[in-house]
């Protein structure tokens, strides 16, 4: 009979990434929309 010690390490789990609220795609779309709206507003003002 052989007795073998089995050992292992359980590493701390990584913390979840903080939520940024907006994804980069949504941010870019909003920025583009703001640009278009701004350009239109300038054009109307003139």
């Amino acid at each position, binding site marked *: *009979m*052989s*007795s*073998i*010690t*089995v*050992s*292992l*390490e*359980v*590493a*701390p*789990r990584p913390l979840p990434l903080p939520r940024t609220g907006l994804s980069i795609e949504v941010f870019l779309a909003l920025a583009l929309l703001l640009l278009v709206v701004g350009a239109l507003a300038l054009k109307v003002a003139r």
Partner: protein
Amino acid sequence: MKRLLACAAALSIAALAVPSASADEVTVSITNPGGSRTLYVENVLGQPLTSLDFGTGRSQPFRVRVVDTTMDRSGFQVLTTMSNLYKVSGSSHDWASTIASSDVSVAYPPNPLNLLNPKAVVAPVYDMTETLTGALCTTVQAAGGSCSIVMNGVDGLRQTVDLAVDLADLSSLPLVPQTGETGDFTSPDYAGIGAADPNKPGSFTPTNKRVISGVVSTASTTLTSVSAAVQALVAGQPASSLVDADTLGGSLRSALSGPVYDALPSTVIDQIIAGLNKTVRAVTAADLVGQSGTYLSYPQLDVNVPAETSPGSYEGTLVVTAVQL
């Protein structure tokens, strides 16, 4: 004077008490080659294994090696049990923080089984014939015997024969190695580290996982392949080197009938023995008396760490036991 007479009488009685014939002492000896079977638990490089450190990995291979040396015809199993894994806390353990044995399982990589140097130990049986000619025949006939000698069922000396290995078909070997069982250790053992577990129940039945076994084969294919190996080994060898001298002499005496054999000079007996033609009989299950070989299994231990497991070092005990069948 009376004393002298008494002494003389005593010596006379003593002389009568001495036996007239002396007794010969014959040492009777026998060798019973029981052989041996040894279990080794090793890492995959062949070094003795006392610990299996997963580190941050979740799978560890190891090797189980069983070595038979002219071993009797008996099968075997190598069984494993596993304790829970307990979180290390200083020099002791946190018995409340465990990874259950049911999260530890046995699996096998491709080609987990191997076999080295299989041999069969055989006690062959021979049939022998001889037709005497010339002066030898005349001498035997003069003693009242026949020139045609037939000796059936002569027990030969044990022979060890090498056997070929075909890993794709091991069924023709005397002891057929078989891959073990897969699956998890549903119920834990409480050996080793687990023996100190304060939650250890009064009685328990740990889950056994077989990691290799050897099954005795008496299949016709086994006997056929061993017969072929024996025939190849004894081909060309004289009967006198294959059968014990006294066994051979006894068989010849029976074949010639006792008085004829007893009347022949030893030189004639030697000439007859030198001319015997032998045929080895097909090996039967009874003739196959043992085997040698190295049986290897490469299991791997897998650990599934549940998501809620507290970080840290964990330890448990794997017990490996060989059972004779």
